[in-house]
């Protein structure tokens, strides 16, 4: 049974998920349910002059219409006070005075049928006085730029600074200074299942249940209670199956306030399911960050210091985690490299756009993109091999734990080993030779090799550390393990899966620890009614933090079982060995007791050691001593058609190190999905607004170009294993690493392919027209 750890066990949730028998929010059917539809702003910025709801109220089936002026709910919360003077714009679920992005809700209509609600919403007449839009980060900082929230007198929400080491001295003494301006375009998380809410109110007891698409049901309950004046004791939040999260469902959204309020008002269940066009405008976006980075170098490529200035687009409002995202760029802004001195400034900027927030990687893709582009730019500038520049600067294995100039403590790593393994697997020398041949021949299709030796920070996280950044929540995770009289184990986890396979991973973990069968473990999640607690699933924290809680809880059960077994076997606890689900007396393997028998004795409770409580159950809150820092090297081998600007990825190779692995198949799946999101940003996806009007130009999947399996390369995955001391599993998170690694690997590859033409940088997405344009400019410039 112990072999379950590290085995590619088939996922126990897949039978129901792939046969369509999973229950998502929209599948929950309550008798008497009525439906809500929202009226949303078509303007990026406008004053609501009047709303005429009379026609909508008269429409067939309409039960209620609520406008911003009538809405009584508390403001939607921003949970991250990144600086004491952070400017937080008032954010109401239904806007009353001004709207601040396309898709900002101004009213809601409830009707007996879905289509009736949609039809009636179209009958609400809103008179707007358009105000100037501002979309672009750099423009929003210009003097005289339109103000998103005029009462603030500025578009700057905050300026956050950190520094360590002698930056100015290093720059003064540098032999070379390399600078880049890196743009991480705005993207959307686009889970397959859009957001949805169903609320039901039971007037007799005053109880409210909210089914919602969330990655954090417990936190949602707390935030909802605080902002709506509802007792947490009366509120149950359920996240049933959730069809993808990617950070999009890590928030408290307007609809999560409005739908329960409507259910209370109407005393009927109210359901709302987001339309995709709504999703693209009203669910948070990600990235939209500009990084100005400078490196002071020696001629051999050694980086002596870095300067960072980061502009982060907040959007029209601050959602729960919005202002904190650029801080995660700071936390790994030295990448996998020693860099003795760093100064970092982040500026959070309001614009008349959909709010941004955590999106797979959240701040670390931005950091990694800039650092890994910088490594290539340094190599290019100094005429060095990009692999050698990385080797020269890597934090070496013996330097861990490594404290960065900004005070982050990296846990463990063997960065050069991962790079070397990747270079060998891809046949770096052979590719370089082919590249040289193609360059010499002036081939139409040129070859590029892109390295990305990433490191990221995840496993959020130590409560003291995250609270120290101004976050309004801790970083622990909890788990309850409960053993039945027949030895079956129920796990109540605070983690909240959105498709990752927690039920399988937790079953493997518990079965391997307690020696029971994989099928005898039942994993419950996503429902505050289960009586657990937790922070939820984000920041690749489930295994390192949620898994840590399960590991410790299992250990405590084993310890209690040992006391019971010792009492029954009439020996000392120290004489017992626990292995393979069985306690045996050292030296007499015949004298022993199975864990199931111990569970039965704990239930029967008549032969327990004096003072021992009946039952075999344990709740643990695990607060890790540190974050975890997964790392690795990805290599993208790209063929770029210099006549058309099109790119074909010939090979994509991933060497990842997430420490000890519970299920390698799930890890590979996370890497695959993560890389796809990174390559999607590199080549395809971009949320586009019209700069003058602030109109959203990518409101559907026709305009917002998500790649399919057809566009994606086969990925070659392999690993190195460097356990972390941050949790007893020795495991680091792997949910975001692929996304974090992929975009710089891709851009480095395409830039490398085109470098003979004089191309030094490319912005994402690297669409054929953009690459072709760069080629034309480079040719014109020569």
């Amino acid at each position: 049974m112990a072999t379950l750890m590290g085995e590619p066990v088939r996922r126990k949730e897949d039978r129901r998920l792939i046969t369509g028998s999973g229950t998502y929010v929209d599948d929950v059917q309550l008798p008497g349910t009525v439906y809500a539809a929202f009226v949303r702003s078509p303007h990026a910025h406008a004053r609501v002059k009047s709303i005429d709801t009379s026609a909508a109220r008269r429409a067939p089936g309409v039960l209620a219409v609520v406008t911003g002026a009538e809405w009584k709910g508390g403001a939607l919360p921003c949970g991250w006070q990144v600086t004491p003077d952070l400017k937080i714009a008032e954010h109401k679920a239904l806007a009353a005075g001004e709207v601040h992005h396309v898709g900002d809700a101004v009213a809601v209509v409830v009707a007996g049928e879905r289509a009736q609600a949609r039809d009636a919403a179209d009958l609400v007449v809103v008179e707007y006085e358009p105000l100037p839009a501002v979309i672009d980060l750099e423009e929003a900082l210009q003097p005289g730029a339109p103000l998103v929230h005029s009462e603030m007198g500025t578009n700057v929400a905050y300026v956050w600074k950190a520094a360590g080491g002698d930056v100015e001295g290093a720059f003064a003494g540098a032999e070379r200074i390399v600078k880049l301006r890196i743009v991480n375009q705005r993207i959307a998380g686009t889970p397959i299942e859009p957001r949805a809410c169903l609320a039901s109110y039971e007037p007799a007891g005053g109880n409210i249940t909210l089914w919602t698409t969330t990655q954090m049901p417990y936190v949602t309950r707390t935030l909802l209670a605080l902002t709506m004046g509802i007792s947490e004791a009366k509120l149950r939040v359920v996240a049933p199956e959730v069809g993808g999260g990617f950070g999009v469902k890590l928030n408290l959204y307007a609809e999560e306030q409005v739908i329960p309020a409507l259910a209370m008002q109407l005393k009927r269940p109210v359901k709302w399911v987001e339309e995709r066009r709504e999703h693209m405008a009203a669910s948070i976006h990600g990235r939209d960050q500009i990084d100005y980075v400078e490196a002071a170098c020696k001629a051999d490529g050694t980086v002596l210091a870095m300067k960072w200035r980061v502009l982060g687009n907040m959007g029209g409002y601050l959602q729960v985690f919005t202002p904190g995202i650029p801080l995660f760029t700071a936390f790994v802004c030295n990448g996998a490299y020693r860099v003795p001195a760093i100064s970092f400034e982040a500026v959070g900027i309001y614009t008349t756009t959909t709010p941004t927030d955590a999106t797979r990687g959240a701040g670390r893709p931005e950091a990694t993109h800039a650092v890994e582009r910088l490594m290539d730019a340094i190599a290019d500038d100094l005429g060095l091999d990009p692999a050698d520049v990385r080797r020269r600067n890597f934090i070496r294995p013996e330097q861990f734990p490594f404290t960065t100039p900004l005070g982050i403590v990296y846990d463990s790593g063997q960065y050069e080993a991962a790079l070397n393994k990747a270079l060998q697997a891809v046949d770096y020398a052979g590719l370089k030779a082919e590249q040289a041949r193609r360059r010499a021949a002036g081939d139409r299709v040129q070859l590029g090799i892109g390295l990305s030796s990433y490191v990221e920070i995840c496993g959020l996280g130590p409560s003291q550390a995250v609270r120290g950044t101004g976050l309004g929540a801790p970083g622990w995770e909890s788990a309850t393990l409960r053993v039945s009289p027949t030895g079956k184990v129920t796990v109540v986890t605070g983690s909240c899966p959105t498709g990752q396979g927690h039920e399988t991973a937790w079953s493997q973990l518990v079965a391997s620890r307690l020696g029971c069968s994989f099928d005898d473990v039942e994993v419950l999640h996503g429902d505050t009614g289960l009586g657990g607690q937790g922070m939820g699933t984000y920041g690749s924290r489930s295994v390192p933090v949620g898994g840590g809680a399960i590991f410790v809880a299992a250990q405590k059960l084993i310890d209690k079982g040992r006391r019971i077994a010792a009492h029954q076997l009439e020996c000392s606890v120290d004489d017992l060995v626990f292995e393979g689900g069985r306690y045996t007396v050292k030296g007499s393997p015949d004298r022993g007791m199975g864990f199931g028998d111990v569970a039965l004795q704990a239930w029967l409770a008549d032969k327990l050691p004096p003072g021992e409580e009946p039952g075999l159950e344990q709740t643990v809150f695990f607060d890790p001593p540190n974050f975890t820092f997964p790392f690795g090297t990805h290599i993208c081998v790209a063929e770029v058609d210099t006549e058309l600007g099109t790119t074909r990825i010939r090979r994509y190779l991933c060497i990842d190190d997430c420490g000890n692995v519970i299920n390698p198949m799930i890890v590979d799946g996370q890497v695959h999905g993560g890389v796809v999101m990174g390559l999607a940003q590199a080549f395809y996806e971009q949320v586009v607004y019209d700069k003058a009007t602030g109109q959203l130009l990518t409101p559907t999947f026709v305009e917002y170009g998500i790649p399919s399996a057809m566009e994606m390369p086969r990925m070659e995955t392999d690993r190195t294993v460097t356990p972390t001391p941050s949790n007893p599993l020795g495991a680091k998170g792997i949910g975001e690493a692929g996304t974090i690694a992929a975009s710089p690997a891709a851009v480095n590859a395409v830039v490398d392919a085109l470098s003979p033409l004089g191309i030094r940088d490319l912005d994402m997405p690297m669409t054929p027209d953009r690459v072709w344009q760069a080629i034309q400019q480079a040719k014109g410039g020569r």
Partner: protein
Amino acid sequence: MFPAEFDYVRPASLDEALALLGSDDVKVIAGGHSLLPAMRLRLSQPQKLVDIGRLGELRYLKDVNMVLCIGALTSHYEIETSDLVRSRAPALQEAAAVIGDVQVRNKGTIGGSLAHADPAADYPAALIALNAAIRVRSRSGRREIAAREFFAGTYTTVLQPGELVTEICIPDAGHGSGQAYAKLRRRAADFATVGVCACLQVMDGRVQRAGIGVTGVGPQPYAAEAAVAALLHGPALPERIAAAAALVCQGVDVSDDLMAPAPYRAHAAAVYAREALTTALTRARG
């Protein structure tokens, strides 16, 4: 994404269907792969849908005196896999094979695609290059429209109210001919950023007949007349093909959108015209 309310009728015969058409608020639906998304976005709000999808009399592929006749309800998949199409109009088959994905190709129909007149649809380029005719019927009669004259603008055709596309007829390309469709697309299932179909008939080393149809480039699919003129009756040589390909956008208001800015689209059209013509020439020499 809920459509506005509408009525739905499913006639049992072509004549019954024609009797239901004629007013602007009636829309014909076959595979539904173009109309339904537009309705769900409420860009299209017809009062009534006439579903002709099950009219078997409009679903066929046949040879009539060396003319390939395709019923309007023939699916993309049927065209993609037909031996008859492969032998008689291989470029049409190449175009069918790169429409959407397999599910789309199983549901979508050639007549529906033509009547919808997406400016970046694949079929029009092939039908224009192959000199096809589109047959239409109404309560009051029938007529035949040359493919090159069928498209009147973006999502607009010369069809009159009450007219229904019933058949597509493709003449034999003749001995010594070769044809090819070349498509640039962002993603596998996308409409064409640029699509060029070329059909060349070569006799004694000279271009006897030429057809070039272009899609995705302008407000509507078109025949690249200047490029054709540059090839006709001259020697079939690579440099002449390159020169002709460079004329493929002449006189066209090249589209500029998120998919591709106009300068890139014009450049790509020339490259794809060259590739389609080169392949067609190779095949003509077969």
